[in-house]
């Protein structure tokens, strides 16, 4: 098998961020003029517990190369328990996706608080590099499958 060079590949990554912690943390990263790759697109939700597994499947189906689910730290959820449901759902989802052949790096969850701008930036940097190394998502992208 040929070794593919992914250095010029720009992955598209979708992040679902809760309004109270991670979205706020992302805003703070901006306020502090931190720099991170532009591969990320954020969808704002009230709570990470709002993330329906369907959203994730759809993202991969549409061709995103990676999906990130971010919320408040366990115990800090604005709605008390939302991120506990996220955590359980995430673990289940992850196993399902791995079973379907999606590399584990393509689907990640992170707890980032409203004050952790640095952690937000570092996460985006790391996740982008990890997914860049993997190359494009062919396995679930419908356009590729039906080609």
């Amino acid at each position, binding site marked *: 098998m040929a070794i593919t060079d992914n250095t010029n590949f720009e992955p598209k990554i979708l992040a679902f961020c809760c309004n109270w912690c991670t979205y706020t943390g992302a805003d703070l990263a*901006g306020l502090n*003029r931190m720099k991170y790759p532009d591969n990320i697109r*954020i*969808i704002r939700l009230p709570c990470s*517990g709002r993330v329906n597994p369907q959203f994730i499947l759809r993202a991969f189906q*549409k061709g995103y190369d990676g999906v990130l689910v971010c919320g408040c730290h366990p115990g800090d959820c604005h*709605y008390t328990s939302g991120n506990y449901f996220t955590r359980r759902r995430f673990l289940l989802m992850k196993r399902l996706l791995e079973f379907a052949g999606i590399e584990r790096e393509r689907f990640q969850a992170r707890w980032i608080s409203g004050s952790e701008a640095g952690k937000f930036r570092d996460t985006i940097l790391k996740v982008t590099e990890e997914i860049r190394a993997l190359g494009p998502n062919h396995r679930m992208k419908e356009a590729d499958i039906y080609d």
Partner: protein
Amino acid sequence: MARAGVFICHCGSNIASVIDVEQVAKSAEQMTGVVYAATNKYACSISGQEMMKQAIIDHQLDRLVIASCTPRMHETTFRKMLGKTSVNPYMLEVANIREQCSWVHTDKEKATAKAIDLVRMSLAKVLKNQPLFTSSIPVCKKCLVIGGGIAGIQAALDIADGGYEVTLVEREPSLGGKMVMLDKTFPTLDCSACISTPKMAEVGAHPRIKLMSSCEVSAVSGYIGNFEVTIKQNPRYVDHDICTGCGLCEEKCPTKLKSSFDQGLGQRKAIYKLFPQAVPAKPVIDAQHCTKLTKDKCGVCAKVCPLGCINFADQESYTTDTFGAIILATGYQLIDWGSHYPEYGGGAYADVISGLQFERLVNASGPTEGKIKRPSDGAQPKSVAIIKCVGSRDVAKAHGYCSRACCMYAAKHAHQTIEKIAGAQVYIFYIDVRTPGKAYEEFYDRTREDGAVYIRGRVSKIYEENGKLICKGEDTLIGKQVTVEVDLVVLETAMEPAANSGQTAALAGVSADKDGWLTEAHPKLRPVETQSAGVFLCGTAQGPKDIPDTVAQASAAAAKVLGLLAKDELETSPMISAVDTSKCSGCRFCEQVCPVKAISMIDIPSIYNGQKVKRTVAQVNSGLCSGCGACSAACRTGCIDLLGFTNKQILEEVDALWQ
């Protein structure tokens, strides 16, 4: 057809220096559904808003995408603006091209491309938006305070003094709680009863406070501003409307019992006031021990009562009332140490007593009139061992937490013993001495100066031999076993949540932590609020604390309630969950995941195979729903959706990138 308008904000140079805003506007114009796109120097400014308003009129726009700073900054501003136009305020999406684009990227080309993507995503979402309407709920200007200890008393007085009606529900026959049982309070040593009984009397006489003693809350429904609360009046067997509190019944009652107020060290009658300064100052009958009620014998009280207040047929009764706010001040109880500590005799030794029992012994109005006497033989103890952390900081046997007040009252007990008994020897066994409070450390210093011997180590065993109580410990500072032989042992026992406080709180939708303490909304920033809007908490119901902290927290809760009751109406967010009952299967999964108990089940009529049947479906209480969307993600049939963040809207956002 939708008629969307897209506005790209320059934000001075904040956005425009990195993103080619004109390019973004040009691209937006090509997108499906967009009838107008323009840029604006400062969208949030008055002129910016006027420009958008004018565009709405000129181009008959029915929805907007504003690409600017984070929606957390100006979404509300723009919604307010739309409120003055023909466009529904919720037909708006804000694309965050400042904090999450121009400020974090440097490559202009890429940043512009990303901004276009972000606009496209917002547009996709806004095309699926539906007009939403806020509603308002009236606020009932009355507060319910549950618990009549010092926390409840303070909160009730503050709110009533602020001009609002308060109903104070107390389970016991009198106000006062634990504080009124205490002798003196640290570190100032002022008399506890002297400072708390005037407050009790004030509550009893306050024109805006309705005091309901011997009462319990049995049901709570409704939501912030409009709680429907059912209160159970337990039978008192004495008509308090007529009773003057003359005390004749109490004097003549032949049945003597151990007084719970005196912690079993003193006596009371079967018809009794909890203590002399009780509020209300009227007696009740202890139904479990009154011989008239248990064996139909006696009835002396009824015979001697000059006003005929005694009613042996009294029954429990229920009243329902509406309140705008609820304060939980259910307090604490002390651990039943005997069942946890067999190595301390498990309660078999009369002279091993709890700290609260010591308070009654040393209290001038207590069973010994303030003389410290051994419960076993009434002798004055010459030596006393005080043992801290009994039931606290003990994961294996009782509670892992620190009860916070014990270090200080242990020092106080030592001080009082030395003060009242000349030449008394006092040993205090401790693990750590914790004195974080104003003038607390100084009090500890003074207790050592008084002559109390502090021994660092937890006592392993207490037993009796030849009339002495033997405490086996280790002085961990010298690393040797030590034994003290004393006449009296005082165990400074752990606080735990009052019995049933968890159930009462659950009625109001408030949860408790693993130890049973009620959970505040945020430990630092929302310390007296709860996850249930309109329900507040204060005092030891929330966690162990001393009197100053309790009173401070009570006033804080009162301030929050005053702020709420000052409003005539509350606006509710329309971005809450809604159920499509035609698809709902009644699986109750949403009910379980809802953090605020906003979802309940109802039966609705339905037709199945031509038959009329009843079907169970979910319904959302709009007053309670906080709009988190957990139910929506959990719903198997997809019938429950979060307005403003519907599945359809989000999926469109996901899809948008590849359109």
